[in-house]
């Protein structure tokens, strides 16, 4: 499995676990998790900590671009892909 696949899988399972209403073990990578309210504002803080854990370094929320959390794909794009490295 590629590293991208692995990270997305872990994120997808983590997100599914956060929502008591969501029945599956994982969410589709393109699901609009904020819009669909799978993840709420207060859980984003927890998500940031989880992302820091996966990345092994701190994240400064002030530098996070709008839309970064909209789906698993966009989270990966913002925080893990090299061309879109989070500043």
């Amino acid at each position, binding site marked *: 499995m590629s590293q991208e696949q692995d990270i997305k899988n872990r994120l997808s399972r983590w997100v599914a676990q956060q929502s008591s209403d969501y029945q599956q073990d994982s969410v589709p990578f393109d699901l609009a998790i*904020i819009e669909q309210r799978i993840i*709420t*504002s*207060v859980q*984003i*803080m*927890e998500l*940031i*900590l989880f992302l*820091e*854990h996966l990345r092994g370094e*701190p*994240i*400064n*929320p*002030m530098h*996070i671009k709008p839309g970064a959390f909209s789906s698993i794909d966009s989270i990966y794009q913002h925080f893990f892909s090299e061309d879109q490295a989070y500043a």
Partner: protein
Amino acid sequence: MENVIALSQKLSKASVKRYSNPYLEFDWPDSLPQDGWFFSPELSSLYATPVYNTLSEAQKKRLAFWELVNFFSLNIHGEKALLQGLSQRLYSHWPAEISDYLHHFLGEENKHMTLFGTFCSRYANKIYPSKAYSLKEEQVHSVEDFLFFARVVIFEEFVDFYNLYMAKDDRLHSLCRAINQYHHNDESRHLAFGRKITQQLYAANSEDWGQDTINSIRRYLGDYIQATWKEYYNPWVYKDAGLSDYYETYLTAWRHKNQQQLRHKISAHCLEFFVNSGIFAEEPVL
């Protein structure tokens, strides 16, 4: 607003009387002793959790130092938001006496930040970033005003518990005690103002808002309390203190019943205010 005006005048007088210059009041040694306490151990975010008992005295002190840096950092972030919100409300739709007091409030917060910032930059060479991230939701003006001051009360109530406790803790290094004492002296006025205006804004507007808005306000403030608490548990503090599984340590500490109890104890005064004012129907989960 009559009672808020009267209190503003009283507090402005007190602020003038206690006007201080922290640039002259504080001495900043070149370095701090390695073997001192900088955070009351009972207030540590790992206190009475399994990992805490495995630490040596020296490790506990090292952890305490980084807990203090985190505490000062979260103060800085809270105060940054405070400065923004207060300056937005200067000379707006409220009587002039309120602006007079907001000037003091702003000036005092700005001084607090210089103390916290100087300490962190000098002795830790960093300020931990905040983890708070909010999804913008548009609210009507009166709700925005109310939520702003309600957040101020929550943030300052929690902080003040730590300030008061640490200012009195004679195990702690004198600089640490002095900063905590200095902060507490101003916070007692800020809290008096914050509580009064929060109550007033709720009483004056809640009937117009309707039950849906009130429910969403309650949810929002419950979430805000949780988010405020989460800032006290920082995996990077545990890493700087030399602990290995710092993310796991964070998860365990946050969920541990002893820490939950600690949060309850510290939040009690604040929650009582929100319940007694009718803002909360019941206490939120911590």
